[in-house]
């Protein structure tokens, strides 16, 4: 029997706003425990929630990026349950009227695009962090009340790769819209997956299994594909899939049973009486959208138009700080592709070697652009410019020109007569290569250019040398 999988995802994204969702306490991760706390975050009696405007703006931006209908009236509800990490005994969320609904996003796999429907996006608040020990538990309220958006997809994905791409796309949206740092490893983007399978052709959904504790993009793919395999094997061997919650175990590469689901908990939702409905003017919503920082897809398109290779674009955009660095320099060079080359090869190599982040780099984007221009306009080769770059990185006080001087780098010879001299010398010394070229072996051309570069000690412009070489070859 052949099965198809049905996958739906619930993604929680922690917003990096200045203050919390409903209190004025600062949002600060990895601070001393219980130092980023206002009376509301510990549910002291009499405290009241006040909606964070920036969180609303962020949610609107994400909803817009996901092509959702945006509700112009904000409603909040209480989700009531008792748990040690829930200070108020309820969580303020948006149950009845989410800020956004009926959206979609597109993922591209092997050049094929697929639309995945999104049911809703809503705002809520995080719980406090628990640290369990043998006979006690420590509570850190720094996280309590941190703004979250929850994005709930429709069950429209069918394999791990699609799900991974879906989450990556959401990550890019929240990251580039400035909503969140979107780090799965640090829990600022959390993903719960619902996986079920059914025989191909069957309309009804199979029994749904929830998989939690997925901490990386790769794990999404692996966990879902594992779960599909597990469920298929169960059905094939005549067993039933139980409705349960499982946990992804990174080490063993398996999902492990957490608990069997009984009747769903009754959260006794009702409207939050301390927040009256808030009307958002068209102007407010439009302004939130208009002022949204440029998103991933738009940047990607722009970089491709500027002549960058797709693989280079993806590398640059995989790190928002690198993208931002790139943008500061890209208008100052003739061909952004040259800039991308330096960034991806030399700069990345330097950062890796020294275990640095691009934000640690003392080299200003404008200075890097100057170096790129030495190649583009100053007649230096890429290799020569790379040497200058490393020199400047070693000695940040040097300007690119100073570094060039210090390294005794001189401009490439681009005078046709001078280059012709090298061409003639090389052709005279390599009759066999001329014969090979005439016999249609293109490789010979590359060899001859190499010889010219060697003879000239790298000082001639290789493109110009190649052009003259071809002309001369045709004459011989």
């Amino acid at each position: 029997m052949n099965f198809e999988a049905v996958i739906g995802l619930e993604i929680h994204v922690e917003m990096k706003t200045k203050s919390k969702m409903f209190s004025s306490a600062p949002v600060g991760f990895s601070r001393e425990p219980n130092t980023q706390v206002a009376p509301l975050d510990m549910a002291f009696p009499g405290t009241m929630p006040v909606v964070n405007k920036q969180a609303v703006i962020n949610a609107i931006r994400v909803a817009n990026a996901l092509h959702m209908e945006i509700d112009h009236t904000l409603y909040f509800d209480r989700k009531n349950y008792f748990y040690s990490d829930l200070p108020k005994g309820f969580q303020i969320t948006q149950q009845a009227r989410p800020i956004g609904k009926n959206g979609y996003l597109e993922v591209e796999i092997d050049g094929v695009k697929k639309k995945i429907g999104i049911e809703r996006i809503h705002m809520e608040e995080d719980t406090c962090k628990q640290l369990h020990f043998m006979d006690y538990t420590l509570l850190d309220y720094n996280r309590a009340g941190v703004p979250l958006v929850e994005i709930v997809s429709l069950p429209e994905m069918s394999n791990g790769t699609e799900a991974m791409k879906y989450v990556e796309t959401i990550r890019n949206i929240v990251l580039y819209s400035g909503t969140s740092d979107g780090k799965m490893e640090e829990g600022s983007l959390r993903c719960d997956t619902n996986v079920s399978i059914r025989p191909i052709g069957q309309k009804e959904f199979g029994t749904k299994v929830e998989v939690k504790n997925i901490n990386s993009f790769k794990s999404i793919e692996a966990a879902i594909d594992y779960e599909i395999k597990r469920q298929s094997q169960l059905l094939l061997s005549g067993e039933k899939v139980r409705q349960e919650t499982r946990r992804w175990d990174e080490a063993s590469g398996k999902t492990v049973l957490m608990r069997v689901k009984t009747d769903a908990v009754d959260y006794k939702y009702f409207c939050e009486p301390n927040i009256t409905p808030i009307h958002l003017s068209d102007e407010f919503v439009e302004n939130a959208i208009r002022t949204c920082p440029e998103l991933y897809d738009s940047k990607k398109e722009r970089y491709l138009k500027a002549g960058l290779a797709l693989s280079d674009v993806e590398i640059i955009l995989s790190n928002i700080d690198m993208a931002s660095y790139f943008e500061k320099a890209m208008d100052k060079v003739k061909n952004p592709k040259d800039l991308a080359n330096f960034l991806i090869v030399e700069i990345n190599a330097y950062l890796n070697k020294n275990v640095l982040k691009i934000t640690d780099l003392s080299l200003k984007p404008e200075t890097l652009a100057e170096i790129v221009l030495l190649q583009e306009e100053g007649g230096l080769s890429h290799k020569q410019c790379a040497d200058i770059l490393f020199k400047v990185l070693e000695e940040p006080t040097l300007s690119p020109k100073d570094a060039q001087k210090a390294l005794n780098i001189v401009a490439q010879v681009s005078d046709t007569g001078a280059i012709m001299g090298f061409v003639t010398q090389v052709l005279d010394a390599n009759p066999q290569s001329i014969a090979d070229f005439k016999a249609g072996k293109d490789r010979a051309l590359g060899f001859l250019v190499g010889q010219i570069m060697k003879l000239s000690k790298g000082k001639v412009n290789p493109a110009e040398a190649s052009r003259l070489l071809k002309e001369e070859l045709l004459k011989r």
Partner: protein
Amino acid sequence: MNYLDLSIDALHEALVKKEVTPLELTLEALKRAKEDNNNAIERLDEENAIAFAKTLTEPEVDNPLWGIPYFAKDNFSTKGVETTASSNILNGYVPIYDATVVKKLKDAKMVMIGKTTLDELAMGGTGTTGHLGKTYNPYDEKHLHMVGGSSCGSAASVAAGLVPFALGSDTGDSVRKPASYAGLVGMKPTWGRISRYGLFPFAPSLDHVAYFTRDVSLSAYALNALSGRDENDSTSSTRPVEDYAADLHKDVKGMRVAVLKDIVDSITNKVLLKKFNKSLEELKKKGVEIHEVEFGKELLESLYATYIVISCAEATSNDANLDGIKFGPYEGGNTYQEVMFNARTKGFSELIKRRFVIGSYCLMRENQEELFLRAQRNRAKIVAKINEILDNADFIYAPAAPGVAGLFDGASDKLSDEYLIADNHLCLGNFAGLPSITLPLGFEDGLPLGVNFMGKAFEERKLFNIAKTFEDISGLADLSALNKKEGNL
């Protein structure tokens, strides 16, 4: 007669003339509080009160609140002063912040001398369910009659003459009903006019900061200081604060008063009816137009059930924070469930638990439509009716209660018309969030009777205008058990 027993205007004049100082007033209030036998006080904040009163040396001529001692109901957060809401679950809880109103009164140089008792967590109308036991009515030295609740201690402390002003809270009638039983002015303004930040919530959609005074003037002056937008309470109104005392002495000629016939009809107390009818005649003499309106008996009879469902549902959620983990007595347990279970089992009285069960039941998925949401819809219906009446009237006027304060051991037929209607109609003001003021009407066998005016949203100035006129008619300003006993009136 002590300065403390004067009208606010006379007291302020004495303070301005330095005949008496805030410190002397504070010491006198503290002395009276210590001698009080009405069980009205949770705790005194003697040291801070004296220290603050000592700093008040230069009278502020334009600030009638300057140097006046007051009590706050013990469900207002007071920084550094234990606040329990008269519940064992909050024993030992010392807040780290001041409620906005406490801060505002301090800014107005009023001197808080302590905290008063209430029905546990402000749930109740008898003044008997707090962890210190019954609070008594100062007009009954035999301690047989209630003072009403939930703001029992605040009502008793003002009625006994300890202070001229006390903060309370009003979710159903928790200030305006005890005001009627204690011969006081009980004021609850429009929902959102006064910030609730720091008021321990019972049912936020119905909760109001409210307060007791002995005359209408102080009630108006106090609103000037208490009201205004608060960034900590997003439900507080952005409307500018007015001078609520501006129209106190304005002519009321032509004002329209709607008398709710169904309420009057349900009352059996002849003394009350006689006095009430007489007040109508007096109002007419002042040029007030009186007309009777029918609210609808069925709708009025639904008030109590609607109130119980909505208030209990909200309460069960609001008080879910009281779990013994973050504050309040820790009663031990091996799991978080046990910790919460033990704290809540020991911390709440049976009555409170009953309310939580009712509230929780109403919110359950399978009951929500039939109970909670139905109550919400009925509330909307009630509010629509009130607004319809106020389209043709400036005020709705009725006796505040069906009679004088009941006996502690009174046998009551809980579901009589009189109970369901005349004893419960003040919650109309909470459902609609409208300003509502209770005023003394007279006495029956030495115990006070009261009336209530309810006005349109944010028309507090007008409400004080009619209230002041009524006070002039009744001649019952500055009532206290002490003033009555000493014949100061």
